[in-house]
């Protein structure tokens, strides 16, 4: 490897990158857009859930039982007098849940056996789970208070659960999405962009001219890596700043480790991009393959959206072949949990192995030959 040749090629890559709008779009515009959309737009948390309450029993007791709905950030209730009206609201998609307090609620409560009915609009499973749970626990805590106030005699001990959540004091899903976003941006820049620009060189025949010079394959590979590495680092910087300052996601772990693991992952991604383009030598195909083997699985299988512990074992195994899964795990851990010994080291080592593997593979495939 000759340093002057390498620098010359790197300079060329930078010129090309700066003059090509797609690098700018993929490297900067798309990450920014994702930060805004994922940071503020994507949320699995239940907020202001429209609930239609059918107060068929208008007694003070019934109203008191529902007091937990008012002022709660989770619900925005609207009160009607019959279950028919409430269901009509749900059919019109103006309510996601219906709570029916039957006319005999108070009288049956006195007898010790009252019922309420919850109807949930089942098309959004996350909301359904959360709504069901919040309403149930709201009613239960009212119930225990009522019992305490009205039935002094019968006292049996009751177990209550005090939930505490670690690593996510704000309990928002943006804390979960933002570290994952970094993985997606790195994948996008590394695999997608690199595969495109390298395939373009094959397609336009510029590599053929460069091959017939003293340039070594390693220099070509290394020179392609540096500029896109820089773009990826800009993307990383943007994501980190947005997470920390924009959305208040804490970074409990070591920033140095975040940086180191990102460097490892960018090398993996770029290596994958170069490997794909050297295999197909065609922009359109390289693009499609990059999509199917890197971006989609990164979103779907790395634990970004869905917990890998809840999926079938086969899918989980596929997920664990992906380097993105380890990087995702590492980042979530470093962001939210702080540095914790052996697992960080394990993930870092796995990433290192992948990085070396893909780098060697792309080096091997970029032999100076045309077909």
């Amino acid at each position, binding site marked *: 490897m000759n340093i*002057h040749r390498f620098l*010359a*090629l790197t300079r060329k890559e930078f010129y*090309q990158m700066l003059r090509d709008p797609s690098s700018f779009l993929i490297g900067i515009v798309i990450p920014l857009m994702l930060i805004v959309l994922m940071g503020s737009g994507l949320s699995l948390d239940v907020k202001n859930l429209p609930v239609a309450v059918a107060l068929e029993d208008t007694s003070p007791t019934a109203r008191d039982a529902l007091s937990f709905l008012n002022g709660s950030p989770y619900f925005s209730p609207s009160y009607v007098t019959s279950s028919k009206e409430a269901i009509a609201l749900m059919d019109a998609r103006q309510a996601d849940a219906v709570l029916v307090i039957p006319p005999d609620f108070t009288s049956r409560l006195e007898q010790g056996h009252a019922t309420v009915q919850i109807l949930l609009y089942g098309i959004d499973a996350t909301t359904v789970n959360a709504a069901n749970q919040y309403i149930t626990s709201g009613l239960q805590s009212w119930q225990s208070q009522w019992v305490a106030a009205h039935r002094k005699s019968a006292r049996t001990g009751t177990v209550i659960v005090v939930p505490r959540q670690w690593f996510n004091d704000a309990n928002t899903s943006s804390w979960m999405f933002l570290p994952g976003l970094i993985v997606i941006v790195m994948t996008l820049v590394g695999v997608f962009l690199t595969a495109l620009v390298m395939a373009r060189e094959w397609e336009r*025949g*510029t590599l053929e001219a460069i091959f017939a010079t003293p340039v070594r394959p390693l220099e070509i590979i290394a020179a392609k890596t540096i500029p896109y590495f820089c773009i990826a680092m800009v993307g990383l910087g943007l994501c980190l700043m947005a997470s920390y300052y924009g959305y208040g996601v804490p970074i409990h772990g070591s920033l140095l480790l975040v940086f180191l693991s990102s460097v490892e992952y960018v090398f993996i991604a770029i290596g994958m991009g170069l490997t794909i383009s050297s295999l197909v030598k065609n922009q359109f195909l390289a693009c499609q393959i990059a999509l199917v083997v890197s971006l989609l699985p990164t979103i779907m299988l790395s634990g970004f959206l869905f917990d890998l512990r809840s999926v079938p074992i086969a899918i989980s195994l596929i997920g664990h072949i992906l380097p993105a899964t380890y990087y995702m795990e590492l980042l979530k851990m470093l962001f939210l949990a702080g540095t914790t010994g052996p697992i960080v080291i394990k993930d870092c080592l796995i990433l290192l192995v992948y990085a070396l593997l893909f780098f060697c593979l792309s080096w091997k495939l970029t032999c100076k030959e045309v077909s």
Partner: protein
Amino acid sequence: MSDIIMIQAHHLTKQFPARPSSPAVTALSTLNLTVKKGTLTALIGPDGAGKTTFMRLVCGLLQSDSGSLSVCGYDVQQSPQAVQDRIGYMPQKFGLYEDLSVMENLTLYADIHSIPPDLRQKHFRELLDLTGLSPFTARPAGKLSGGMKQKLGLACTLVSTPDLLLLDEPTVGVDPLSRRELWHILHTLSEEKSLTVLVNTSYIEEAEQCQYAYILHKGQLLADGTPESLLQYARGRCYAVRVPQGMPPRFIQSWLLDDRHVVMDAVPEGSQVRFTVSSRQLPNHLLLQNYLPGAVITPVSPRLEDSFMILLRKAGSTEEETPGMPSLPKVPPAISGDTIIEAHDIVRRFGSFVAVDHTSFSVHKGEIFGLLGPNGAGKSTTFRMLCGLLSASSGTISVYGVNLRTARARARSYIGYVAQKFSLYSTLSVYENLCFFGRAYGLAAHKLQERIETVAGQFHLNNCLSMAAGSLPGGYKQRLSMAAALLHDPPILFLDEPTSGIDPLARRTFWRQITGLAARGTTIVVTTHFMEEAEYCDRIMIQDRGRLIAIGTPSAIRHQGGDSPTMNEAFIHIVETGRQKEDS
């Protein structure tokens, strides 16, 4: 010239294995080839001769199957890098980075070859002067004209002062002026710096300027030698026949060519038609004499192209591919004075740049009208305006009596169009392509089938109707393009550089078709970089820098060009005097 050998190929063989889309191909078979230091060597041959494969083998970009190849004293297979450190190679697409400027491209190659800074400035100055690119150092390579790109590509390969220069089809799509400049540069380098150069080309007259030439055909060596010694194959077989007044030379050429067993080749040239015959003696009777009793035939001296054509015809290459030609009438139809295309005071601007400047001309019914000019002269723009691909900024164009501005779609139904590069749908079969274009021209079911049968017969496409258009060999592609353009039997046919990058044999076949079409009354408008092809036209028009600088019959143009012996020289003369007049 010394005796040091720069390239030595011995029994070199290269095969490409079969793929789903294409059968196995033997690109080179047991080739023996030697290039000595300090020589200009040409590699000539038709499409698929294996020229590019050989270049890539020399560069170490391909692995050979058997035989040996040493370059600059190294075995390429063993140490490709050592070879690559010492050569300059310009691939067909020039290998330039289009979004980098001229200077950045040069600097990149200087850096790659580790040229020290002091030497670098000197080299850059020399190369920029030599190529005339000095005023354009800041321009992105993608915005250069074809000729300038080619010269920049050359300059990039020369920054390192290589021991061996390899140029793969450097002059395809490049105008005669730029071509002449390129060869001038190559001669200078070869003489002053004793650079060794190997050039692939399908322009035979370029090979004449080399010291040694190899003629390849289907991976095999047909002949080699100095251009002088290669003439032996044609010596005593070349003749010329005078063209009587009022007779288009192309008719006589076609009559000669139709005499396939006797006449090997024929080309119109000014007021005569050159031809070569298969035997050392002029046969007693030529088919021509049926049409033109008392034709005056005189022997002429041979050219390399004559040898090339004879060798190729003897190798029996394209016999089976050559379609039956449309028969010609005994008496060429007179061209009526009716105007079929009229361009009046047309102007086309791109931003502040004026590509075509106040140009007026008309094309008559039934004539072959040639548009000529150097790269960037405005001839493509004019051509695109005539077929309605581009609208004029001002002025009017009417085609077949229809104003292009007001009734573009109707005007288009009267024209057929053959683009410069193959531009039919390559994944579709030949039949599907024809169906589509027939329908696009409104041919209904039964009429469509009838026309497809007719043109498929006319262009001998019947055997390959179900083949994917993209997998056809080069000659077939051209014929398919013609067939698609003629499917609706248009009165006017537009041809955009139809023969660019095509070997002489295919060019003859092509022009024979055109002559047949014109004889049946089709008006033809054609652009070309081959000046000798202007000889086929009834009238030609030369543009430069957006202006019309000459229009008239080929002989009138020759006269205007200082009575030059070849059309090429006449063209260069006219363009240069035009520029001098404008500059002063």
